[in-house]
């Protein structure tokens, strides 16, 4: 995740690390488990060093009580980030090349690689599915989990297409 996420959350009002972490946890649900409070403080310290946020309180206070606000530069960065349409994409090319190299170099059976990958994705899908069922319907986090589910489904469909294509190739030899 980008530092801009933390910046953008400060746009609502000046806040401290603990509160930002709490708001993040609410929006991300179980996905936020990978983000520690310490990471949040490190990020805030970095943003302060870069002049994108500034402290509102006395410098001597405890780290979880330091209140930060956006600077003008920070505000500008948030605006840029909001209008940025770049999109994180899974690196399908790497797996594709694994199959091509495996077939060309006789390193492994592409179908076997596809099967192993599919098993792994199905396990992940099962795990996220269980998480979705526990999540409160219509929450912010449920919407994020739905996206993760749809992505895994798309990847599984692509693997299925790979399987058909590589099976055809192996029988044409």
């Amino acid at each position, binding site marked *: *995740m*980008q*530092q801009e*996420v*933390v910046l953008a959350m400060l746009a609502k009002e000046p806040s401290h690390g603990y509160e930002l972490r709490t708001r993040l946890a609410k929006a991300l649900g*179980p*996905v936020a*488990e*990978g*983000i520690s409070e310490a*990471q*949040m403080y*490190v*990020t805030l310290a970095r943003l302060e060093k870069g002049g994108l946020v500034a402290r509102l309180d006395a410098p001597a206070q405890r780290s979880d009580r330091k209140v930060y606000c956006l600077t003008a530069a920070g505000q500008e960065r948030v605006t840029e980030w909001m209008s940025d349409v770049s999109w*994180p994409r899974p690196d399908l090319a790497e797996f594709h090349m694994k199959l091509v190299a495996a077939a060309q170099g006789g390193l492994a059976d592409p179908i076997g690689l596809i*099967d192993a990958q*599919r*098993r*792994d994705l*199905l*396990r*992940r*899908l*099962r*795990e*996220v*599915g*269980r*998480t*979705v*069922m526990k999540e409160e*319907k219509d929450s912010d986090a449920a919407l994020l989990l*739905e996206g*993760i*589910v749809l992505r*895994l*489904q798309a990847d*599984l*469909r692509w693997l*299925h297409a790979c*399987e*058909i294509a590589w*099976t055809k190739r192996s029988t044409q030899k």
Partner: protein
Amino acid sequence: MNDSPAVLVHAKGLRKDYGSGEGLVRALDMVDLDVNRGEAVAVMGPSGCGKSTLLHMIGGLDRPSAGELSVAGRRVGELSERALAHLRRDEIGFVFQAFHLIDELTAEENVELPALLAGCTPGEARARATALLEQVDLADRARHLPSMLSGGQRQRVAIARALANDPAIVLADEPTGNLDSAAAFEVLGLLEGLHANGLTLVIVTHDERIAATADRLISMRDGAFVDETRLTGGSRGNLGTFADWERLS
């Protein structure tokens, strides 16, 4: 039923043809399948690959053209129409994509019906329906007509109905096919819970989310099994790996 064999469905060289001569369509071609008691098997494949035909055959709705098929110890190909009907009534529960509830009957009455047909007294059937509707979390909708229920609720009633005759196996044909995402997860959670309690399930589906909850996933094409993946056992995934948080710090 504890003394019944571990293998509930056994198919060997199963074939199903429709039509004849030039119009012959081979819907199933040399299919081998064993389903163990308590197992959940998902079957995926493109439309027309034969997966519904397979399900109909296991459910005693259709007979094989060739090959062996036994369900709950009975050889489907050799049963009379009457014996086949008994097999369906006593051992099989069906769940369909379009729910197939009777519109004029309440949720409770829909669930009672198979229990009555299986020989329960009206009192027993009512008690069974009440317990099952509670199990699918719809006790408060027992007197509602299907038209008063959401899609997810209707499918949950249909699942309760499929369990009313205490079947050895439940066969589901695209159970989430007509549902939105949230309702699909309701049904998915319900089926997973039933399976965890020992129910044997064969589910034909296009939905990877359902397939992911099975013990075994079979892929079909052109009437034949092309791949089989065992999904249970091994390490469990970790949700933390779904998103890349490294760049936060």
